[in-house]
Each structure stands twice: as structure tokens, then as C-alpha cells.
């Protein structure tokens, strides 16, 4: 066996992952004066070369479909690089009867290069939901603990929005919101009639110059990555200032394999596979921040077995990998004849919705717990691969009839994506697959996933709401769902919303939780987890803003502890 190459020096902190959670930790810790080494499993990203901003489909030989048409499965060839449901050489498995899709990014900045930029605060009630309805668990911290960090994150990264005073969707520090698109005006009018709250969206996109970054140029392509960094990504907004301190060492192509625990029971190093040379290396640090994405972090903790922690680091409760949730997702769309009369116009706007529907039925009894929000889409988008699949399927035919029909319906479709809260259940978790390793020799994950009645009823409610809005707009609701089968009411498979969280959740009681309220493992004081894993609940909010707020808070705590000599 080749000898392990060890780092020449001991860093203060090793951060594993460079996305929302890792990038934030890297920034706060290096600016706080600590020497940080960051491991990223993928390559460096070069926005001006890697992002396909302002390109037309016909400028790519595959028009956006990708080699063999396969990029369609990963959104499109235009997506900012290196996010996929399947990564060659790095498999995962699903237990019989389970269907879980695991989206991973292997690149500097992780999934923040192409995420939806939806930046919603959790509400005060979201931290105490067990107290409210007896399900799941309360958080060990409250909204008041996190609110100052929401303020800081929003102020730094730039989030547009408006003050609305909706209790399920707390207001934040906002840049001005963009005006609604035509379709969004019609949706809002219909929602007003139905007493459904519809307000300006909250997205991490700059409607004004902010902290040295240019304002949005309204090409509508945030998912491709933004060369001017007018939207938020860790690679362009968190890492540059961290690098500028001279205290951050970024190692790319480094797949973390194990956190090494010393004789004193504290973490002392991280072993990783250097992908380029396929050799194991080791970097020494006084503290470790794990932010590899919720399931990848759980995998690393479970793989970090030692005599002191035979079941994995931080796993004395056996709860690492448990309490996995994804957002409940169900989509629907319709055709709105009123939009046929709109003259052709530029509808691009920012890369995402300008309006959305926050959870609005919090003040009444529903036949499911918790709630969901609705994301809006549709209108005169840039044509792309797959745009007319539904038309072709529904209306069939060929020739001038098909061509004229496409011309007429283009721009008249509007759609909705419901995103709701899942209650953790016993049948949903990830664990190490006892039989298999990836190409780096690291044991892989096996997923167990099951939606319960709670989520199915929520999906049913989503479908009914979508239909009522479309019909109020005078349109025809086109989505057909089944009440049984694998995906009742159009509920998407687990993992598909890419909000997987909860696999190393925080809690006041070390007997039932992996982390304390500062994202520090109860078992090992110098190990922190700052991605989606600490989340006790995943309310109907996209988790990224909260991940960054918690990571900033944990990093401040770590800095403080380091100063006191406690780490």
C-alpha cells in the first residue's frame, strides 16, 4: 500500500465542501483569522468559460439536449456545470420498494452555481412545530436565535423581496423586487379572487448593484450560472473574499473519505482521495466543518469509524442518516387563452419567478399537517428541448396543423410547483450499503424512502389549488394525476426537489440528536456539520438561506471557542 501523504502543516480548520454551507464557513472562519483548508470533490469553476450565459440553443451541437439527449434528465446542457442525478463511478442504491433520487454537484460552489436562488426565511413557528401539532421535534434554537444571521446573510448576498407581514413567511432585508411578468399579473388577479396570498418572490438575485457586484441584466438564465455574479453562488460571492484573506487553501479533486479521530477522542485530520492521482492523502486540522451536502456528510460521518466511535463519528445515538426528508413536490400547468392575445414581448426577467404564493392556510384546519408554498412559471420563455412534448402528446398529428398550434399556444402556458413540508418518518433514511464501494473505495449510501399519508394529502391539496387558479384565469388545467400508483397526486419521487436535509439533526438532548444548537457534534467537540444535515424540520421553505444562516452562526461560535482555547 502506498504511503499516505500528510499535509505539511496543521490547519486551524478543515472545511469539507465548498457550497452554501462550506463556502459560508470558509468565509467567516478565514475572515475571522483562522487558517482554513477546504476540500472540494470536484474541479474549479471558471464562470466566463463554464457558464453558457446568453447562448442560443443552436450554438450547441446538441441544442441543450446533451450527448445522446441525456442532459435532458439533468435539466439541460445549459445548467451550470456538474450537477447530476447519476455520477459515473459514484453510485448509490435504493432499498427494495424505495425510490430516492440523489442530486449531487462535484464542483467548486456545489449546487449554488445553478440553484433556484429562492431565499426564504423559516418562520418562528417552524422552529417549534412539535409544540404546535405534536409531530416530529422542536428545534433546540428559536427564530430569534437565527434572525440576526438571516439579516447578515441577506445583507451580504443580496435578496430581493418586499415587506408583506405574512406570518408564515417572515420579511427580511430586501432589495427592491422586479415588477411581475404578464402571466404573473394574471395569476395574482386570480389568487386575489380566491383569497390566496400572492406576493413578490424572494430570490438571491441583485436588482441593484450590491457589494461590488453588477445588477441583474434580466436574461432569465440564472440556472446557467451568471458571469457577472448578479445572482448568488458560493463560488463567486463567498469564496473570493475568503481567498482574499490569504488564509484559505482550496484543494479541488479531493474526495473526503474519513475524519480521523486522535487518541484524545477529538478529530485530528481528514483523509481524502486525491482523484487525480488516485492516492490517499491526509490533511491535519484542529477542527473539522463537514458541509458536503446532507447525505454526503452523513456518509462521511458513518464512514469515520474508530475504536472510540465504532458506528461512525457523531453517531453514538445511531441517528446519523435518520430523519431524512425532502420537500413534498407536485407540479401542474394549464393553458390560458387570455395570453394568446399578448403581443410578442421580452418576458425573460430574472432567472426565476417574480411572484410566488407563500403558505397561506396557516390560520385554519387542513387535512394535512404543516404547509406548502407555490412557485410560478410559464409564459414566453426561450424555446428549448422538450418545450412541446406535452403538446405533441396531447394533440398528436403533424404538419401545418401542428406548427400553427405550437405558434398559438407558445407563451400561453403557466405552471405551478408546490413545495411542502415532509414529516420525518421511520421508513426514510440513508445508511451505508454493506456490499458496495464507489470507484474511490469509499462505501456508498443506500436510501430508504417513503411518503406518508400526510404528504400525499398535501400533494392532493396542491393539485386542487393549481386547478382552481388556472380555472379562475379562464384557462384549461392540463395536468392529469392518479390517486394511486407510485406517485399519487403527482407527488415526485424523494430527492427530486433537491432539498434533502435532516441526516445529522441538531437537538438539545445528546441522546436523541447528533448536533447541538451550534451545529457541533455532541460526541466530538471539534467537529461541526453546516449543510442541510442539521435541519430538524424542513418547512415549506427552500433550505439554502437557512443553511447559510446556521453555517454563519456555527462559524461565529467556532471562532469564539477557538479564541477561548476550547477547540
Amino acid at each position, binding site marked *: 500500500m502506498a504511503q499516505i501523504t500528510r499535509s505539511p502543516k496543521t490547519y486551524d480548520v478543515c472545511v469539507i465542501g465548498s457550497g452554501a454551507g462550506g463556502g459560508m464557513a470558509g468565509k467567516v472562519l478565514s475572515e475571522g483569522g483562522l487558517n482554513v483548508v477546504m476540500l472540494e470533490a470536484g474541479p474549479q469553476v471558471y464562470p466566463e468559460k463554464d457558464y453558457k450565459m446568453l447562448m442560443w440553443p443552436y450554438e450547441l451541437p446538441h441544442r441543450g439536449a446533451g450527448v445522446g439527449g441525456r442532459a435532458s434528465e439533468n435539466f439541460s446542457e445549459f445548467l451550470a456545470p456538474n450537477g447530476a442525478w447519476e455520477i459515473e463511478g459514484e453510485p448509490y442504491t435504493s432499498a427494495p420498494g424505495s425510490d430516492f433520487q440523489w442530486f449531487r454537484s462535484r464542483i467548486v460552489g456545489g449546487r449554488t452555481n445553478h440553484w433556484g436562488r429562492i431565499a426564504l426565511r423559516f418562520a418562528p413557528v417552524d422552529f417549534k412545530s412539535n409544540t404546535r401539532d405534536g409531530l416530529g421535534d422542536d428545534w433546540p434554537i428559536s427564530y430569534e436565535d437565527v434572525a440576526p444571521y438571516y439579516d447578515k446573510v441577506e445583507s451580504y448576498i443580496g435578496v430581493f423581496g418586499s415587506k408583506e407581514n405574512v406570518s408564515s413567511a417572515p420579511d427580511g432585508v430586501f432589495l427592491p423586487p422586479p415588477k411581475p411578468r404578464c402571466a404573473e399579473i394574471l395569476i395574482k388577479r386570480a389568487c386575489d379572487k380566491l383569497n390566496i396570498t400572492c406576493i413578490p418572490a424572494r430570490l438571491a438575485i441583485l436588482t441593484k448593484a450590491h457589494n461590488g457586484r453588477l445588477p441583474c441584466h434580466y436574461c432569465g438564465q440564472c440556472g446557467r450560472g451568471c458571469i457577472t455574479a448578479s445572482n448568488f453562488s458560493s463560488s463567486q460571492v463567498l469564496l473570493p473574499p475568503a481567498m482574499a484573506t490569504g488564509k484559505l487553501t482550496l484543494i479541488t479533486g479531493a474526495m473526503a473519505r474519513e475524519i480521523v479521530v486522535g487518541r484524545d477522542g477529538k478529530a485530528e485530520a481528514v483523509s481524502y482521495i486525491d482523484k487525480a492521482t488516485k492516492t490517499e492523502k491526509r490533511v491535519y486540522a484542529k477542527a473539522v466543518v463537514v458541509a458536503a451536502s446532507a447525505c454526503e456528510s452523513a456518509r462521511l460521518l458513518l464512514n469515520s469509524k474508530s475504536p472510540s466511535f465504532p458506528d461512525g463519528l457523531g453517531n453514538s445515538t445511531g441517528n446519523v442518516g435518520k430523519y431524512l426528508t425532502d420537500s413534498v413536490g407536485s407540479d401542474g400547468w394549464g393553458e390560458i387563452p387570455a395570453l394568446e*392575445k399578448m403581443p410578442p414581448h421580452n418576458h425573460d426577467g430574472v432567472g426565476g419567478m417574480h411572484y410566488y404564493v407563500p403558505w397561506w392556510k396557516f390560520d385554519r384546519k387542513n387535512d394535512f399537517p404543516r404547509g406548502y408554498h407555490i412557485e410560478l412559471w410559464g409564459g*414566453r420563455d426561450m424555446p428549448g428541448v422538450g418545450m412541446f*412534448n406535452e403538446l405533441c402528446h396531447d394533440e*398528436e398529428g*403533424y404538419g401545418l396543423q401542428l406548427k400553427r398550434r405550437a405558434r398559438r399556444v407558445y407563451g400561453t402556458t403557466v405552471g405551478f410547483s408546490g413545495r411542502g413540508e415532509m414529516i420525518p418518518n421511520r421508513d426514510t433514511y440513508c445508511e451505508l450499503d454493506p456490499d458496495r464501494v464507489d470507484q474511490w473505495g469509499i462505501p456508498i449510501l443506500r436510501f430508504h424512502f417513503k411518503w406518508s399519508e400526510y404528504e400525499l394529502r398535501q400533494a392532493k391539496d396542491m393539485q386542487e389549488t393549481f386547478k382552481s387558479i388556472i380555472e379562475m384565469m379562464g384557462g384549461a388545467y392540463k395536468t392529469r394525476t392518479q390517486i394511486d400508483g407510485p406517485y399519487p397526486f403527482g407527488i415526485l419521487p424523494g430527492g427530486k426537489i433537491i432539498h434533502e436535509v435532516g441526516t445529522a439533526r441538531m437537538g438539545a438532548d445528546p441522546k436523541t440528536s447528533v448536533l447541538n444548537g451550534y451545529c457541533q457534534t455532541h460526541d466530538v467537540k471539534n467537529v461541526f456539520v453546516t449543510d442541510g444535515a442539521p435541519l430538524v424540520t424542513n418547512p415549506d421553505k427552500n433550505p439554502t438561506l437557512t443553511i447559510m444562516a446556521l453555517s454563519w452562526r456555527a462559524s461565529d461560535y467556532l471562532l469564539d471557542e477557538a479564541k477561548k482555547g476550547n477547540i
Partner: protein
Amino acid sequence: MSTLGISRRDVLKTLAAGAAGGSVLQVIPLQAAEAAHQMVRKEKATAAAGKYVPKYFTVKQYETLTSLCDAIIPRDEKSGGAVDAGAPEFIDLLTSENAEFQNRLGGGLMWLDSYCIDHYGKVYMESLPEQRKEVVELIAYRKNAKANPEIQQGVAFFAVLRNMTCDGFYTSKIGIDDLQYIGNVTRSEWPGCPALPE
């Protein structure tokens, strides 16, 4: 979009300055990025237009594919058709890289010829125009397969080809202009919706 009147050298110079200028955000001027894209477009447009050599389909199959693409989205008074838009090349490229498409489309074209031989005595391209129209009309609708299960596979084949022809057409400049999509440009302000029709 207007021509920006910038030379390739200007663009490269600006790009280099942007990268070397030590901007922490690696911002390059939008105008330069836009101009670079326009150049790619122009170079493609002026490339020698030789006859396309199919990557996957045989020459005969490619003729059939082209004829079907033309039937699915033909030219009309407003715009060119799927063939003008390069849909056959696009479909051939994707098929050459994907075994499932090879089976569905390559096999589908073979099925079509077999059907035509059985019913008209000749392969599709050698059948009479009204016979070709007849078989396309048949396989263009699922309901026809209910009455006539013999054509079920043909209907399935045509559905895949129709999707891919639409993809090829509506991702081309011709198809995008046909829909009157306006955008993919940089703007300094977002004006909102230009007055809704009441």
C-alpha cells in the same frame, strides 16, 4: 440585436484584461461576452456548406428521416420547416450517441419500410406520395392503433420522432423566430409587462 462592431481582437483583449485585472468576481464585460457569441454564430453561418454525411443512419434511412421531418414541420408562408432548421442533423447526432434512439428511430424507419412493402409493394421513399401521406396519417394518431393494432409500433415510433423534430425545429433560429421569442439579451432595467389586453 444590433451588431456591436467589435473585432475578434478587441474581444480577446477585453476578455484577457477582465481575467488578468484581478477582479475577485471574475466579471467580464457583458458586451464582450455577447460579441464573442455573435462571432461563433457568424463563423458557423459562413462555414463551407457541404452535403451532410449522416453519423448513424444509412444514406437511404437519412432520406426517409428527412422526408418525415419535413412532413412533421413543413415550410409555410411564415417560416421554413424542420429540414431548413437542421432537425435531421440534430436527430442523427443524438441517435449516433444513444442506443435507445438507435433502436427506436433506426428500428422505426425499418418498420416503416416493411409496412410500406407489405401494403404498397415498395419501401416508403419509393411509394406514391398519396401512399406516404396515408401511412403518416395513420401513425400520427394513437386512436388509429386502437382500430388497427398492426400499426401500434409505428405510432410509438412516430411519437418519438415528432418530439425530436419539434426539439430540432424549435431550438433553431428559424423555429425560435417562428414563435417570436424576444429576449436572450441584456437589459439595464426590467420594465415589467407591456399592458395586458383587457
